[in-house]
């Protein structure tokens, strides 16, 4: 039995009716698309944002500068200063290491003269301290490089200074660096630690897939509160200074 031949007009009629099913099919597909859009962008948005926050946002602290310890006359017995260090993780790739080495040595002149390129290449993968106290000019030169290379970074550090007399130093006590902050561990530094420490600030920044900061996303979420100055019942008398001399 042969299939009956169909005239084109019959086929056109069939196509007109079947095209309606086509419209219905794409209409249903568009409803499914819209529902899925609503699910992702509205209903379950919070869930996705939490995932994104876990994987890409980084929170960190902004250390507060520690307060000073002053004698009864207001002379500083202990104080902190902030310094900026430059660290470089030597790349595994020799060509990249050479390129960065030449840039660092010609642009910023921060490297100790005793180090050489060959010396650096034998220590690939290691993080070395290039400079432990950058001045403003050096900092300005290095900043653009830290944005280009994720293996070069500048970090801040605090250094606690104490009155040089041994007897006074013993009473003042010592600090330890914990999470970039100075924490008192003995003497007056410990006794008045809650006032001296201050409160660190907090920031958050988005990381790209390689773990680098995206500078435009950096935002401070809590202000730094510097430590209070504390007066202690001591006096650095002129007699004591002459004795030291």
């Amino acid at each position, binding site marked *: 039995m042969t299939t009956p031949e169909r005239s084109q007009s019959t086929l*056109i009629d069939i196509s007109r009716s079947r095209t309606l099913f086509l419209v219905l099919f794409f209409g249903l597909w568009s409803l499914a698309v819209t529902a899925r859009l609503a699910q992702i962008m509205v209903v379950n948005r919070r869930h996705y944002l939490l995932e*994104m926050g876990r994987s890409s946002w980084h929170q960190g602290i902004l250390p507060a500068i520690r307060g000073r310890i002053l004698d009864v006359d207001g002379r500083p017995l202990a104080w902190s200063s902030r310094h900026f260090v430059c660290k470089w993780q030597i790349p595994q790739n020799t060509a990249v290491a050479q390129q960065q080495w030449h840039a660092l040595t010609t642009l910023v002149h921060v490297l100790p003269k005793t180090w050489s390129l060959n010396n650096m290449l034998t220590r690939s993968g290691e993080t070395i301290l290039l400079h432990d106290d950058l001045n403003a000019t050096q900092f300005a030169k290095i900043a653009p490089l830290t944005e280009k290379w994720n293996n070069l970074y500048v970090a801040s550090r605090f250094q606690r200074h104490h009155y040089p007399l041994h007897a006074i130093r013993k009473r003042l006590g010592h600090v330890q660096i914990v999470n970039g902050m100075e924490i008192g561990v003995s003497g007056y530094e410990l006794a008045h630690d809650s006032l001296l420490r201050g409160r660190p600030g907090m920031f958050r920044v988005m990381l790209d897939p390689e773990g680098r900061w995206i500078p435009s996303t950096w935002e401070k979420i809590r202000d730094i509160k510097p430590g209070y100055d504390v007066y202690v019942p001591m006096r650095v008398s002129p007699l004591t200074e002459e004795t030291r001399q």
Partner: protein
Amino acid sequence: MTRKTPVKLLTFLRHGITPVGLACIGLGLLGCLAIYNATFHLEAPFQYVGRQFVWLVLAATLLVTVSATDRKRILRVFPWLAIVVYAMLWLVLRLGVSVNGMTGWFAWHGIFLQPSEVAKPLFVLCLASGLQMTAKHRGEFKHGYLPVLGILLAWILPIMLQPDFGTVLTYILTFAIVYACMGGRLLYLAGTAVVSLPAVLLIVGATPYLRDRFTSFLHPAAHAETSGWHILQFQRTLASGGAFGQSWGNALWARTYLPFGYSDSIFATIGESMGFVGLLPFVLILVAWVMYGYRRIQRTNSYLTAATITGMVVCLEVQAFIHLSVNLGMLPPTGITLPLISYGGSSLIATVTAVGIVEAFSRSSDEPPQENT
């Protein structure tokens, strides 16, 4: 210059500049904005949008020309174009450049041409002509179905060798829907699907990147660092947009984490900027396009015109919905662009050609039924 020349020019412009054509150009400009939104942070911020704009200008000219061209002239010219483009599909395998493992582009001084995109409207015209020629045997297998199936296989074979399975899927779906709409027997389509299923499974199983795409589609979180990465970033980029978007220029997640935010992932990029509310018009436009094609088909008395319009509409619609579905995680990732919006000159040319052909064929929709042309 005779007095008829200005009249001819006016007629040309009246036929060439249509509301649908203007809407296409408007979408093309929106596409340029979306591409810039995704790439302005690069070292060369105008690299992509500049090229896309140039292609858009060419596409606008082509759209007007094709829309204004008489249907009969198109039918006279397209076989020669089809031969040339078909040859290009085979030549690109030899002479083309490879991008992401796919040898599908001719490159010349920074200009890329993808023949499989440009071939789409010509494939549809070949299919429509094949359906027209076999219309008398529409319900038959040997004389009504196999010839048009042969047209499909001939066009998809070189594309499969690139390999570009996303584009192959577009061709196959276009064929199936057009054949079904033009009075074909659904049983033949179902039978073809069943018979080819083992071959499809074999190809997927034997091709590592295809296998990875399917497994990561089913469990994206389990492959978060590898093949599931793109799927997860689609969802997160869209979620970042929320209901009302982050506004243009602030698609941070798309710029940072989402791969190909200017082409394969552009719907998600726009979603982050415009939000759920801003994406709804895109879905409505796609529905409107199908409705427009449906109305044109209702008004024609020509089988060839009906088949051509159905094919052009379906081809663009399928491509757009695959792109949306991939961006929403409803289908495994493929390299399918969003017509008129995504970066890509070849896709733009193919889309405006298809739209122009719909306009040109629609203009002759009131002609009497033709049995033998």
